[in-house]
């Protein structure tokens, strides 16, 4: 399944709206789009996963990469991930690097 990536620059944060699957085939494009952001100066990144059905390790690596490039004090929110995606994020220990919220209203 293809991945649609829509990036919105807010005043204090960047929102990445994803639709589709983040797998070996589609993760490079996500990584490329994230790399194009000024991550070193970004305090808040919101990745909306409401319409994402699947995330593989390639997708997780893209997310980890973004967090590693952001300041230590920054926040990376994962918005509306499925139970299965949260399970993988928890199992791999990446839960420590992100904040999971059910909607952007919680931020």
């Amino acid at each position, binding site marked *: 399944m293809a991945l649609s990536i829509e990036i919105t620059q807010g005043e204090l944060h960047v929102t990445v709206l994803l639709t589709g699957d983040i797998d*070996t085939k589609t993760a490079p494009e996500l990584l490329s789009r994230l790399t194009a952001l000024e991550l070193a100066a970004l305090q808040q990144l919101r990745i909306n996963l409401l319409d994402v059905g699947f995330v*593989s390790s390639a997708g997780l690596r893209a997310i980890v990469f973004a*967090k590693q490039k952001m300041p230590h004090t920054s926040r990376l929110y994962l918005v509306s991930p499925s139970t299965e995606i949260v399970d993988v994020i928890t*199992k791999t220990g990446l839960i420590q690097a992100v904040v999971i919220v059910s909607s952007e209203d919680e931020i």
Partner: protein
Amino acid sequence: MNTHNVGIELGHVEDIASMEAWDRFIDFASRHIEHEISDRSRAYKLRLAFEELVSNIIHAAAAGKTNPTQTELKVIALRFKDEHSTWLVLRTNDNGVHFDPEFLTRERIDTNEPVHDRKIGGLGLFLIRESVDRVAYEWLDGKNVYELWMKS
């Protein structure tokens, strides 16, 4: 792993181990997973393990370890039954270089390590091991044979 000649074959797909064939392999496995595994969470985990495995095989083929155009990958879906359970098995069979079966011998990643200190890598093998009920590897007749077992 001594089960190669038992079980019911549900179907198979065969192609060059390359990203051009990615969708063929994934669509094939997804179809059988959806049909055989009713629990959504377990279906997700098997798909995850399968994608990680196929990704590793394709990357190994493309990494110069062997000629990618000569690496063929066959995926077979099988149903096994024992007295307690029914299993869906996804077996991959490739003629790439003899893999070190890392997922059986490699050190596990430290999931408690801070993300800023994490090395990028190892997640795929970790997820293969952790996501299915049973995983097996064998070097057989000059081919790598992996099996992912999941109870239906």
